[in-house]
């Protein structure tokens, strides 16, 4: 099983939008390597089950059979703008105020 090098953990942390100092990355790389090593046995277990039965095992994404659920398109009571904005870090003119989301050249 490949170890998770620090560079890969740094890449994953960037994807997950979490700033992480070097010391934290080192520690996390060590722990994740051990965890991935322990959980990776699932791959072999599935391969053995498929070889024994001669059939692929279907994936289960959900514990019980599900149907899509809809409701009639009628107006119901919802949060007011004031309620929704009450916990906002910043708001302005009944809207969430957020930092710049586009670069200069966008």
């Amino acid at each position: 099983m490949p170890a998770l090098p620090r560079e890969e953990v740094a890449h994953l942390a960037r994807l997950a939008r979490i700033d992480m100092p070097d010391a934290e990355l080192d520690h996390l790389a060590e722990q994740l390597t051990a965890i991935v090593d322990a959980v990776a046995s699932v791959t072999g277990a599935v391969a053995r089950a498929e070889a024994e039965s001669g059939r692929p095992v279907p994936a289960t994404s959900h514990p019980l059979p599900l149907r899509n659920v809809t409701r009639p398109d009628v107006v119901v009571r919802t949060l007011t703008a004031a309620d929704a904005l009450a916990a906002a870090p910043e708001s302005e003119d009944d809207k969430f105020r957020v930092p710049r989301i586009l670069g200069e050249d966008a």
Partner: protein
Amino acid sequence: MSTTGSELVRLDASAMAAALRSGEVSSVELTQAHLDRIAEVDGPVESGVHAFLHVDGEGALARARELDAARSRGEELHELAGVPVAVKDVMVTRGMPSTAGSRMLEGWVPPYDATVVEQMRAAGLVTLGKTNMDEFAMGSSTEHSAFGPTRNPWAADRIPGGSGGGSAAALAAFEAPLATGTDTGGSIRQPAAVTGTVGVKPTYGGVSRYGLIALASSLDQGGPCARTVLDTALLHEVMGGHDPRDSTSLTDPVPAVVAAAREGARGDLTGVRVGVVREMGRAGHDEGYQAGVLQRFEEALDHLRSAGAEVVEVGCPNVEHALGAYYLILPSEASSNLARYDGMRYGLRVLPADVDPAEVTAEQVMAATRAKGFGPEAKRRIVLGTYALSSGYYDAYYGSAQKIRTLVQRDFAAAFEQVDVLVSPTAPTTAFRLGEKLDDPLAMYRGDVATIPANLAGIPGMSLPVGLAPEDGLPVGLQLLAPAREDARLYRVGAALEARLHAQWGGKLLDRVPAWTPASTTGAPA
């Protein structure tokens, strides 16, 4: 009133309800007795039980007064009306802080109630406050709470289990007679086991997830916690039922769990087939299981036999891979669910220190906010989930884990062809020491080995106390599992076992919990 407050808080919820109905006690008196008990044992954070993150004394007494007034007007009230309840902080409560144990939501006051909170309010339960938990329900000890751990009422240097350690400790310390939990991999059942209390993870979809702060949506399930099987059933019936606001909610009526608990309490299990899961602690599969846990489990099997049940061993070979599958599926779903904490619309927002505030981008704010707002376990699981879902690894890890899920479901389905319920120890050990596994995530994860399979398969499970381990004097839990939608079986068999154990002990296990001794604040774990 002839009963003192310290005696009142030790009653079962059903006995409290009866005393309220007969007029022997008022809801205000009962609520005040619990607030007094909380004031006595819950603080300070450094040495108290610390089961609560937020206590709403004023709100609870105001609600109790309303209920007492309604009762005196002769209004028809729910059986549990006026009885206090403690709510896990993962359930959102309008006007009351809801943090899920995270700095990310510190100070957040939700604008709406979870469906279960509405249901409990409609039934007249009095909310005392919000209970401590591992951050976003990630953990088995409550040590991952951003606000400091909860202590086990049996021994202040021990963990109360997790993630719902606050709810379980509140019950065991007589701070609340009823409490709520959520169970994604054992977060109701394992805390129940290590505190000598009862907890049930209902069938997936049996209790609404609307307003339950999401961890892993295909595994998360809310459920009841109490000190007896009957009390757990009474709360289950309040919390259960179809909710149109949760698209995964079952449309079935709530199973008749109270009737099942009352029937079971007669102690007769003639004709009931009980399967002992070989891969959960039997010979050859007992690595990591504590001797005293296995001993009390064996004795409980004898009680089931003497109640008339037929006890056989059954194999569920794929449950041995459940832990691995769970720690791929859970982080994957969690990394997606926790993406919403971005510092934009609610909760914490942190501006990076080294960037001009006029120039800062949303992405930089997100990364700084998430670095500060999430604790180590949340970060570990988010990064692990990001890895498991990344291209190149997705099929090998997440894909295989989903196939293990199928295999575990098939094993349970085959087992339930032969038996009515399955049993195992709930947790392989009694409560470990605070700090013992804090920086060894794998050791912490292995404690969930017997509870996780039920979440993968969506089936219901219960933990109930079966004694104290001889070597450390700490509670041992037995886990019951039943097929999906057959939650009532847990209550029937659980109540029968409980009745026999109570007869053997001459009372409840919690009668033996020592008087609370606060933790020593010198040398306490950080």
